[in-house]
């Protein structure tokens, strides 16, 4: 089976598993709505109180981490990961399939968060369209680093605490990049793109080491 063939097979499996339990996404969206609400209340009321970009991005970072800590839950059951480990060349497709899935879920979360934010205060369409590249690049970086690190904590009890502690400092360029790049600042978009390329390359190179432990 080719690299992309294996990736597609694994991605399809993930989608099928997720389709069987759609309700598992609800806590993530509900958490994001509550986080957004708390941030909105905390920083004051009124349309001009807090710009929407930091609100939405902060909520995405917190809610997205909930998804990322569960990246390898399916493989924990029945020791599936042990069976996958012995397959030659599985690391790359496994990582890519997980990364794509996490990216899509976090993107969905962002869209939902934007909708929630739009309920509290109007978001101008021009600002929204300008912010799309930054959010896309930022979400790519977040899902890439989060997926890689989630692989370290498969079966570990304290991953909900440790994954954010490890991931957020590494993700600082992405965090800042989205906040500043949302105004279509090309320099910041280059920073985001550079981060994504560098860390994607590194992730593909080291994921096999993490998988084999």
């Amino acid at each position, binding site marked *: 089976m080719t690299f992309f063939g294996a990736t597609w097979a694994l991605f399809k499996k993930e989608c099928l598993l997720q389709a069987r339990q759609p309700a598992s996404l609800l806590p993530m969206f509900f958490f994001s709505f509550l986080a957004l609400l708390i941030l909105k209340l905390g920083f004051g009321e009124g349309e001009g109180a807090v710009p929407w970009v930091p609100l939405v991005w902060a909520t995405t970072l917190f809610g997205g981490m909930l998804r990322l800590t569960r990246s390898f839950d399916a493989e924990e059951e029945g020791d599936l990961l042990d069976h996958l480990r012995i397959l030659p060349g599985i690391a790359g497709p496994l990582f890519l399939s997980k990364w794509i899935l996490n990216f899509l879920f976090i993107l969905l979360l962002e869209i939902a968060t934007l909708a929630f934010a739009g309920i509290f205060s109007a978001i101008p369409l021009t600002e929204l369209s300008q912010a799309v590249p930054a959010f896309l690049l930022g979400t790519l970086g977040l899902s890439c*680093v989060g997926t*890689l*690190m989630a692989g*370290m904590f498969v079966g570990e009890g*304290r991953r909900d605490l*440790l994954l954010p*502690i*490890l991931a957020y*400092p*590494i993700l*600082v*360029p992405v965090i800042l990049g989205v906040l500043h790049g949302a105004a279509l600042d090309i*320099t910041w978009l280059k*920073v985001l793109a550079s981060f994504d390329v*560098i*860390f994607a390359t*590194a992730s593909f190179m*080291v994921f096999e*080491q*993490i998988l084999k*432990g």
Partner: protein
Amino acid sequence: MKRFIPILLFLFLAVDFYLIFVNAPEEATQGLVQKIFYFHVSSAFAMYIGFLLAGLFAALYLWQRTLMWDLLSHAGVSVGLVFCTMVLVSGPIWAKPIWGTWWTWDPRLTTTFFLWLIFAASLMLRNYFGDNPRGKIFAAVFTLLGVLDIPLVFFAVKLWRGIHPAVLGKEGNMPGAMKLALIFSNVTVLVLFAVFYWVTYQLLRREEQAKHEN
């Protein structure tokens, strides 16, 4: 040989202190507090060298899985973190009288602070996994990711145009005595760094040996 190391360090520090506090003139606008710069810049170099070596040895460990590389990487993170702490402490001590504030969210300060968080997290990761050999692999991977973050510190001032003084690259402005003090400070701190690194590595090696004997 070991008994000469403290003497050597003492000599380096003595000459360095002379060059900084006696030979180098006081800066016209900043006064005495400017002399923190000699320790601050030197510590920053030592910090980067420590983290870069940690990354290099982490990569070697992932490639060859030899314990020595893991111990050297661990030592690099530990010692680099000490000098990173020095940078973050000496910077605000200088900043308070000059900028009027202990801290600003200046890009280089901010990224140096986050480098501290990354490598502190790396030690936390090692501590979590304890004697589990997987911890060494994960720590090596995480250290490599942290090292990839380092270039951002260099590009910070250029990209974000913060208020951090861009000293390097403007050697024409610095009097000879100050340049000499800066160069010798760098050498002294590097000697200190090398000694710390070696001692830390030996401690870690003996810890591993003691674990295997038990």
